[in-house]
């Protein structure tokens, strides 16, 4: 049976703070929360639209160079014109779901966690480590809400 809540983080675990998305998912997965499914990938792709099926809520998680600490926003399906379609936005994933399933996607949030350094082989920066902790604290409330 499909878990009602999906937490989907993306990034390359070997590229410094780009690991924030996968690390966030790893921490949530370790909590073994009932009804919560966890997925990671390097990048968002069109087929991830299929992972939204039969969910009640979805939390997308990525590192962000534009975010100071962390920011969570409710997002809507948008036929955006992202030209880097090898790495489409979560809004585009939602729109792809609408287009191929012909129904509204589940409610989705985007959790952006502030990252600073993205070089190969680097560990998580000190800022990112603190931001990750703040993001986990926020998520514990988000996941608990019915």
């Amino acid at each position, binding site marked *: 049976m499909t878990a009602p809540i999906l937490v989907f983080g993306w990034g390359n*675990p070997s*590229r410094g703070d780009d690991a924030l998305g996968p690390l966030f998912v790893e921490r949530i997965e370790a909590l073994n929360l009932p009804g919560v499914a966890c997925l990671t990938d390097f990048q968002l792709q*069109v087929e991830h*639209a299929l992972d939204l099926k039969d969910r009640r809520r979805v939390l997308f998680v990525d590192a962000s160079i534009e975010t100071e600490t962390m920011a969570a926003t409710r997002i809507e399906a948008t036929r955006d014109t992202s030209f880097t*379609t090898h*790495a489409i936005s979560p809004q*585009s994933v939602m729109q792809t779901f609408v287009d191929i399933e012909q129904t509204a996607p589940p409610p989705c949030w985007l959790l952006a966690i502030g990252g600073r350094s993205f070089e*190969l082989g680097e560990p998580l920066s000190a800022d990112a480590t603190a931001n990750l902790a703040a993001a986990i604290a926020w998520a514990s409330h988000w996941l608990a809400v019915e």
Partner: protein
Amino acid sequence: MSFELETASHPENLRRVAIEPVSRVEGHGKVTLLLDDDNRVHQVRLHIVEFRGFERFIQGRPYWEVPVMVQRLCGICPVSHHLAASKALDMVLGARLTPTAEKVRRLMHYGQILQSHALHFFHLSSPDLLFGFGSNVASRNVVGVIAAAPETAKKGVLLRKYGQEVIRMTAGKRVHGTGSIPGGVNKSLAAEERESLRKDIYQMVAWSREAVQIIRSLFEKNLAEYNAFGRFEAQSMSLVRADGAMDLYHGGLRARDATGKLLFDHFDYGRYWDVIAEEVKPWSYMKFPFFKNQGPEHGWYRVGPLTRVANCDFIPTPLADRERQQFLAYDGGSAAGATLGYHWARMIEMLHAAESIKDLLNDDDVVGTDLAAPPGQRQERGVGVIEAPRGTLIHHYRVNENDEVIRANLIVSTTHNNQAMNEAIRQVARQYLDGHEVTEGLLNHIEVAIRAFDPCLSCATHALGRMPLEVAIVSRDGTPVDSLMRDARGVCTRA
């Protein structure tokens, strides 16, 4: 011919136009054009900001970690690196694979080819092909394709999803799989996994056949433009099986000159350095490989689907081979020499991958239990070569007596195609930009030529807020005179 437009004779008098980064390719690429006051093109270069530190990242690691680690080189073709590294380390161990190990690896590889080619055709290139090279940027993207042709786009999504499922079941996980290990695999297919995949494979074969017809019909509708677009003569290289068949997993190296004459055949890739060398140029981070006996000026070549389909004697699956014959015969062989012929060849390979998956799923070895071979004569050096979705991929390691990797050299597909991609964009610049005012639509012609090669620039960092496209036009005294900006959401503004 090939180095025309590489370096302008008087660059100080020219305007510089930069396309940075090239969209819908992996990582960070930049194209610079030098134009005079009449918009005549004097210099065109594709610069790749390829990460070259990965080889150092591997050094000092125990060899058995490498097949897993190298997947983090690239978020788009991790399976290719996983398998090329495994093959190199098979050689270090002196291991001869069991039938189950080889067939499970092949299954994983064809899953990767299927999903990668589906992504490229349906989602990266079809916007250009369906809407036109200079069409409105607002619709020239994957969601535009879904809106315009929802059934076609949905098939693309499901083909890709199927390939990912093949990878998940053979590699153990959807990403960062561990299925292939030095000397074999650590799992085969479970009976229920095999049945789950077998249930849908006939549909995948059928959709792959449809995809070949889509690109064929696009060629028929736009024959003159497609044949001429970015066309150039080139030498070629790919792996072939001992009997000359296409083999994307293993074989010997075959190279031909631009007329099709064999330069070498069934060459043992374990000594690739005897036939291939690499040149460094000051304006690009990416090296320029060439056939050693011809030198860097004349020895460059191209790799990838177009090369593989034309270079082999036959494809060992019937539907794909029939399509191959029609492709090679089409319009007197014109499509097989066209840069946009890459798309057609790529769909023939996708069909071959689907047929190969079907055959492997009907082979009991994929559910076998003999997973790994005993080590044989240990070697200090190992070379693994595979035909990755984008072309020939070489992994080369030296491992010391403490099992640590002490040297690594990787030549990725996009590096082999470096000079060829530069040549393609120079042809496009001559054909479409020379003497015209630069517009976003014209610049996209350059990107269409690059995308035909499906380059992967070894970078999986795509944090939110990155990847704008900025085109700056600067006068001869350095004063900015015009700029075109496309932000990460694709919105274009002109300063």
